[in-house]
């Protein structure tokens, strides 16, 4: 190994040793001296490079990370909260739409669906249970009252059917119960005066704030029922 090669190797890495370097070192005291000098230079370099590190740096690093990941966590929580809120809002809107929007576009569909839905609960042989006083108490919500009962009233109560609050009266009819609905006038539902399907028929009467619908089977004189309702009812302001 020539001198230049040797010096290059040692200066590139003073700790480097291989057979060639070891052999060169053994035979040449000048090379040994060169290595010693370089090692001493290296320790000076190392000392010079070892600039003081700020004492609290390690703690600062840990603190900053803690704060940063806390911040991140908070951010995540906020995003999650926002997402949950959005989901809840959409669900709320959907539920609202499904529960309270009108499935029925007109009074006829509404009344027939309502009768069919609850038909099983009423039998034509049920005993009358409702007095005129309690009926009128319920009617007050619609600002109306009946002067007299005009049939055998077997049921009278508020029904929330398809999002509409209505008063549902059930009278004994000839062969099956007759249903009378008192509904607030709703612009979303189209008024239909007369309607029928294969079993049921019905008439609607429009008043100032309310619609009254009479529904019964095809044996019932619906017109008569409507007449009786019309005569008996008085509306307050």
């Amino acid at each position, binding site marked *: 190994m020539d001198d230049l090669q040797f010096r*290059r190797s040692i*200066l*590139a*890495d*003073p700790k480097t040793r291989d057979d060639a370097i070891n052999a060169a070192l053994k035979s040449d005291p000048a090379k040994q001296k060169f290595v010693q*000098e*370089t090692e001493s*230079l*290296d320790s*000076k*370099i*190392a*000392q*010079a*490079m*070892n*600039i*003081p*590190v*700020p004492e609290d*740096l*390690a703690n*600062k*690093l*840990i603190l*900053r*990370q803690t704060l*940063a*990941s806390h911040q991140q966590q908070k951010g995540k929580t906020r995003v999650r909260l926002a997402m949950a809120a959005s989901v809840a809002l959409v669900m709320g809107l959907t539920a609202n739409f499904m529960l309270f929007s009108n499935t029925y576009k007109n009074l006829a569909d509404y009344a027939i669906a309502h009768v069919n839905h609850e038909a099983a609960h009423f039998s034509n042989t049920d005993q009358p249970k409702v007095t005129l006083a309690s009926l009128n108490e319920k009617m007050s919500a619609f600002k109306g009252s009946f002067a007299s009962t005009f049939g055998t009233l077997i049921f009278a109560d508020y029904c929330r059917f398809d999002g509409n609050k209505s008063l549902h009266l059930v009278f004994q009819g000839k062969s099956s119960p007759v249903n009378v609905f008192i509904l607030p006038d709703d612009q979303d539902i189209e008024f239909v005066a007369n309607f029928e399907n294969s079993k049921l028929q019905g008439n609607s009467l429009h008043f100032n704030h309310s619609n009254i619908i009479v529904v019964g089977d095809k044996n019932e004189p619906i017109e008569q029922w409507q007449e009786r309702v019309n005569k008996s009812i008085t509306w307050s302001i």
Partner: protein
Amino acid sequence: MTKPQVSYNMATKQVRYEALVKALHADLYRYAYWLCHDKHIAEDLVQETFLRAWRALDSLKDEKAAKSWLITILRRENARRFERKRFEMSEYEEATITDVSATSNEQEIENHWLREKIAQMPEEYREPLVLQVIGGFSGEEIASLLSLNKNTVMTRLFRARNQLKEAVDDEPKLRGLHNG
């Protein structure tokens, strides 16, 4: 079930991170200092580096590779700094080197003198030298860190030391000039 697992992982990650900070922050700070010659920028670089390291800590599989991993992050951060402010710190500024000569002994004066020489060295020579002396990296490791081939690295290391050696050999004369 997931929550305790998550916080357990977080706790482990925290322990790993703190161990990493304690073991390597000094080397990293010194390396950063020799890259930018400014205490404050060096500190910022180290902060940024460790913050990124925290976010990517799960990708560090081999603890032995931690130092070179951190140095790679720091070099990238430093490069970013230059993208942001190309004009800043492009040249070595004497004022930013700590002036210790007024209060300290001869050893520190010599350190200070040598520091200036190191700082004045071309970047391409200084960086491999810092990695070798402070980082304790081998020629191959430095080559892969700096994306150079090993021969280039060894040549640069040789030139770096040779420059410092020449400077030191001339030192008495220089210091005479300094002091006189």
